[in-house]
């Protein structure tokens, strides 16, 4: 998309997939545009209206198992997100949101459920729930600094040949396969990192914004964000 007059950030089903503060990712994206004098708007997509297909960025968060199943059913019935991806929209999907965008995932009922198929990834149960600080060295081509976050999930996600990891785990569990964390497929990013991930990792936020706007963004460094990154990275490495 070339220079949309107003960037529209969709927060997808926060009442279902909003258990871990992931709405903060949408807040961060909108604010980082506004602080650069780019017009931006957050659109909360709730369960009483279809998912709009015309937003520029879609943010999906983590949630509990029963909510995860309700969300995937609803997104399959109202495929606005899939249509948007088809025309190049940017997506950030976290935790349960990451899992349901894959080809299939395990529910608490033990059964496998089909996902939206936007990523080439299958999620099965992890033997032991992964909870704690995580540090990830991002894939070099992304050009961003180390990622810090907090993971809290019971899924082991195996990427297929169509998907590349977001990065390699330095400390923590991540996808639970081959030391990989998250996924990048086209302009869709999936990750297990909460924090929220974009609050702790402004480079990733700006990468998504660059993809969505097609612009080179002015630098924007916040002293407190840099301090937070140092604190969390030091804490994780000390353990």
């Amino acid at each position, binding site marked *: 998309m070339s220079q949309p007059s107003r960037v529209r950030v969709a927060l997808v089903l*926060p*009442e*279902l997939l*909003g*258990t*871990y*503060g*992931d*709405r*903060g990712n949408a*807040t*961060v994206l909108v*604010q980082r545009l506004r602080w650069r004098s780019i017009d931006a708007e957050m659109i909360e997509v709730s*369960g*009483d209206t279809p998912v709009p297909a015309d937003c520029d960025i879609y943010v999906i968060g983590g949630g*509990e*198992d*029963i*909510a995860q*199943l*309700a969300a995937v059913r609803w997104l399959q019935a109202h495929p606005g997100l899939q249509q948007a991806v088809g025309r190049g929209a940017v997506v950030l999907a976290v935790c349960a949101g990451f899992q349901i965008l894959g080809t299939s995932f395990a529910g608490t009922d033990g059964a496998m459920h089909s996902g939206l198929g936007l990523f080439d990834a299958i999620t099965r149960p992890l033997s032991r729930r992964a*909870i*704690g*600080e995580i540090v990830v060295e991002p894939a070099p081509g992304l050009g961003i600094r180390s990622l810090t976050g*907090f993971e*809290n999930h019971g899924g082991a996600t195996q990427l297929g040949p169509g998907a590349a990891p977001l990065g390699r785990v330095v400390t923590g569990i991540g996808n639970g396969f081959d030391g990989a964390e998250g996924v990048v497929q086209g302009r869709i990013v999936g990750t297990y990192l*909460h*924090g*929220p991930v974009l*609050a702790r990792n402004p480079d990733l936020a700006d990468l998504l914004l660059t993809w969505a706007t097609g612009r080179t963004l002015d630098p924007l460094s*916040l002293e*407190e*964000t840099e*301090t*937070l990154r140092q*604190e969390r990275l030091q804490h994780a490495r000390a353990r």
Partner: protein
Amino acid sequence: MTHSGMPHRLGDEPAPDGAGDAPEAPPWRPPWPRRDGHRLPLRTRMAMRIGGAVAWLSQALQMGQGAMIGGRLMLALDPGALRRLSQGRLTVLVTGTNGKTTTTAMLAAALSELGEVASNSSGANMPGGLVTALAQSPEAPLAVLEVDEGYFPSVAATVRPGVAVLLNLSRDQIDRVGEVSRTERAIRDALHTLDGVTAVVNCDDALMTSAARDVAHPVWVSVGSTWQETAARCPRCGQPVTTDAAGDGAGWGCACGFESPRPQWTLDGTEIITPEGGRVPLELRLPGRVNARNAAMAVAAAVTLGVPVDAAVSRVGSLAEVAGRYRTVRLGTHRVRLLLAKNPAGWAETLDLLAGSRDPVVIAVNAREADGRDTSWLWDVPFERLRGRSVVASGERATDLAVRLTYADVPHVRLPEPWWAVEMLRPGHVDLVANYTAFRELVIRC
């Protein structure tokens, strides 16, 4: 011993017909014998003595958490201590995400109308804290215990409560307690195994209603809907829960047929409506709507146990602080009101409470195990509502909070030590809001 001989108000017997004409209930008598400390086995008595000494020592050394350390040691010396110490008493367990400590203190105050009450008034709500509270009042025939929602199933199986007070469930410390729907399921299963338990339930909370749906003796209390995000979906099937047109919590339902029960008690503004239809004004010293809700739950539970409603309301209303919360302390030229808010639901109430003034606010956030290690919840709190006020980001995770405030366009300074933060503000009134372990440290030091 069983609790089969319950006071006459327990159970689901209907209120006497023509309640207005009915003779006054006879003076209440406990149907269970007074406790006799000497009947406790030697091992429990020894464990009580050693545990008590350690609790005293840890308080004397200002280590804090004396209640927890002593009780934990007692449990290590005598794993059966909780069961033995609760035998022969009528025990009430109070659980839920928010309001446990205040509701417990209110209910203990109301029940003291009937006799001595053992209670963990400090908010130490895991098994060690419960053991300490019971050991401190070995003779009390009544016990009102606040229990961490994650520990409710195991504690209930051990102490076999006569009454369970179920407040609300929302996400809190999610990396420790686990997902709320699982917590609901575990509480539901635990209640199922307690024959004859009376559950006093906030029926505007869909999750707690689901947990208590099948108990033999429910007492439904409508306190008005609170922060509903977690419960916006049916706990039984995941479909959206719809509220009635008024949206004031006076009824909700789901397409699967799961719906709110008809309440026996209703909180209406600052009045409670009794099962007989009487209106009783609450005159509370504690501030805010949240405490009216806590009081309604406590009064309903106390009356269920046989306390006259006027006495219950009066005793609940006279409470001025709870485990240091709402207390105003002097610090040099500052008057500091201490408030606890540990999750988005608690913060929603706290922001309402703060909305009435323009005083500066110090916010202290820690992320120790008891708080939950993940600070992401800060992004579910609408801190935008603090714009225009002087705000200090404080606590061990002051930086996480500062970043959140930056993105909320709330100007602030960052100073991890809360009391220093207070001192740098202009003289006058300050609201100091802290989450769980941050609050505990404040209270120890003032």
